[in-house]
């Protein structure tokens, strides 16, 4: 232990000396398992010390609740509902926001027209639309999908427009000097050059929508993961609540991982630094 601390101090002073490259000893997954194992042990100990198991169930209770919810189909059903809502709303948002963003980045008039409405609406969080949306759509699919489209829309629009605006002018000039027509220019120069920015904003949009879906379902939907955690909380079934929280986190992580590999596949030329 003392040695470990001494080692840590040494590498800390290593950073202060400007040597921050330390050799890797353990593969990442072993460290992951070790850390999470320790975390679960600590959790187990704390739940053992807590007299009221409703407040803090043990990791084993949560694991068995997770299995029960898989067995009775609740988990798959609710996860499917939430993921479908995510897919539908992000797709709709992309279909509107990306072309609009491309147009906004290339047309000064459109930018002038849209800038103020966008800047005025954007600070109003999607979640703040929930009460109004409850009136507009009632409880059902409409509300979460509306909230999620709204949430995904702004990052996508602004990320696309900024990506287009930041395209290296020299690339466009180079293409122009080769006599390339406008449509081709958009498809083969501007769009690919803006793609890294678009994909980054897509990741932001998905992360924000995934947060919004939980909030929207918690308040105004009869199904989905957000509804499920609230339902099991009202039943005081804490292990199931925690199981669903784990599922929400895992699916959020997997969605982001999927988008990251999509980025990597779409843009093998982009630098590795952007991918994290």
């Amino acid at each position, binding site marked *: 232990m003392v040695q470990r601390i001494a080692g840590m101090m040494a590498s800390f002073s290593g950073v202060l*000396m*400007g*040597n921050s490259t330390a*050799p890797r000893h353990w593969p990442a997954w072993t460290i992951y398992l070790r850390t999470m194992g320790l975390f679960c042990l600590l959790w187990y100990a704390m739940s053992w010390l807590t007299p009221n198991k409703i407040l803090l169930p043990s990791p084993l209770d949560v694991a068995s609740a997770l299995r029960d919810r898989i067995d009775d189909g609740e988990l798959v059903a609710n996860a499917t509902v939430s993921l479908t809502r995510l897919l539908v709303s992000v797709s709709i948002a992309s279909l509107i926001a990306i072309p609009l963003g491309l147009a906004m980045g290339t047309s000064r008039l459109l930018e002038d027209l849209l800038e103020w409405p966008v800047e005025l609406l954007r600070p109003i969080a999607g979640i703040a639309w929930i009460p109004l949306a409850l009136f507009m759509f009632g409880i059902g699919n409409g509300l979460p999908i509306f909230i999620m489209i709204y949430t995904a829309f702004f990052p996508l629009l602004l990320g696309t427009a900024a990506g287009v605006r930041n395209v290296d002018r020299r690339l466009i000039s180079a293409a122009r000097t080769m006599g390339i027509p406008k449509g081709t220019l958009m498809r083969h120069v501007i769009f690919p050059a803006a793609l890294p920015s678009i994909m980054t904003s897509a990741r932001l949009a998905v992360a924000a929508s995934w947060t919004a879906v939980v909030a929207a379902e918690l308040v105004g939907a009869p199904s989905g993961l957000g509804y499920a955690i609230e339902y099991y909380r009202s039943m005081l079934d804490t292990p199931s609540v925690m199981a669903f929280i784990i599922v929400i986190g895992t699916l959020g992580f997997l969605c982001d991982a999927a988008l990251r590999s999509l980025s990597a596949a779409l843009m093998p030329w982009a630098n590795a630094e952007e991918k994290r």
Partner: protein
Amino acid sequence: MTQQPAPKITLAHVRKEFGGTPAAVVAVDSLSLDIQPGEFLAIVGPSGCGKTTVLNMLAGLEPVTSGTMTMDGKAISGPGAERGVMFQDYALFPWKTVVGNIGFGLDHGPAGHGLSRAEREARVTRAIDLVGLKGSETKYPHQLSGGMRQRVALARLVANEPKILLMDEPLAALDAQTRIILQDELLRIWGQDKPTSERRTVVYITHSIDEAIFLADRVVVLSSHPGRLKRIVDVDLARPRNDETRKSRSFAELSQTIWELIREEAYRATMR
């Protein structure tokens, strides 16, 4: 500047490897060299010859793998305030003004120990005058041109009054005209008008052969992969050196000699 004789540095069979034992890359191998007090020593070589590694070892930022590197008979085991370093990209603190950067070592390091605030300020002012930065004291590095930043880095180095100045391609990022002007100033600050006993010791890394010849007393030519000593060329051009020096016949001959020493490897380096 205190007038004790500057220390002498000795490198004996220095070897430097990077990476783990099976796949180690040898950056520098069997390098032996004496650096004399008051000497201006330039190190040139094709890219990949380990010039910067040698400088980092002299600075004490990286340990030698084997061999010895001593200063006045004592092994160099870490950085010391008597050896000042000027980094290739200047390493100016972006959040400090010109004055803050130049006074950094005096304010926070041993160079300022025992000095009153007024004395430290006086030293910073002197350094500013020396490099001609008057009027830019309160500017931040990003507000300065490349040449000005280089002057700040030089002033910071001088303000700490190290006995040995280690410089890693300090003029590499500058345009040709600015380079020539700053080469002249560098020689003045080093003390080329003074007797050898009052000069500082400079180890100067550069990839420019002409720059090395113009500045240095001796030019160390390294070969690449790994960096080995190829030859030490004595530069017997008269001091003080000036524009006439650059036009002289012996200057051109020296340049030709060194170029021939490294030409083949330099070609190969461009293909890597």
